[in-house]
């Protein structure tokens, strides 16, 4: 996962209390990290939220993986955010999400997109690993954990 998660874009404690806010914080963080042109930010936020309308990416207890393909990125980019209080993400099981992984991939690379979701899922299916992410506390600590995932 550390291959495409941008260390400087990780948010160890999200401020937002709702889905749109979380998506906005994460996408804006990727923008500040230089992952795409600033002018693309709003359109990428819209694309991720549009995808959420088709079905929440909160597919596991406590975890959401908002994602989209977008022409504004030349390669797979991603970031992570943690909300210690949890956010209602419309998750399958009705519980709040605490760990958020945002993935944006180029429109013409569906295999890269699939493999990124696989890589994220492979590590997040371990409850102990997720607990470590939730309690890491800082961006560098989170990034270090990603390298171990």
């Amino acid at each position: 996962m550390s291959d495409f998660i941008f260390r400087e874009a990780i948010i160890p404690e999200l401020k937002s209390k709702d889905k749109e806010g979380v998506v906005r914080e994460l996408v804006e963080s990727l923008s500040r990290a230089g992952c795409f042109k600033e002018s693309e930010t709003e359109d990428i936020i819209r694309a991720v939220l549009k995808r959420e309308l088709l079905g929440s990416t909160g597919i596991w207890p406590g975890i959401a993986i908002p994602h989209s393909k977008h022409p504004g990125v030349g390669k797979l980019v991603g970031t992570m955010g943690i909300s210690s209080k949890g956010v209602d993400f419309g998750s399958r099981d009705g519980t709040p999400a605490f760990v958020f992984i945002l993935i944006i991939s180029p429109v013409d690379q569906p295999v890269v997109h699939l493999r990124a979701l696989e890589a994220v899922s492979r590590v997040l299916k371990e409850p102990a690993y997720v607990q470590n992410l939730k309690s890491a506390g800082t961006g560098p600590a989170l990034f270090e954990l990603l390298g171990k995932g």
Partner: protein
Amino acid sequence: MATEGGNTLQRVVSIVNPNGFHMRPKSAFTEAAAKYDAEVRVIWNGAAYNGKSIMELMLVAAPEGSEIIIEAQGPDAQDAINHLEKILQQVEAA
């Protein structure tokens, strides 16, 4: 084409979606599979995954043009496998 061994059915299905077997069809697949009493597995790259678990199916990164095997075992295995094949045959936007 389905093969039958006891009450276990298998069907090889090609992934036709240009985005591969991605999250939304996986969600639809697991939700549909959950409606059947039959045990459902997806076999891909030699490994078997619980077809009723989105967490497990997220590990199936099958791209367009690849093949997976749907396996169902139980009293309503035939209905399950027919239904699940239809879900995989649907092509939708990303």
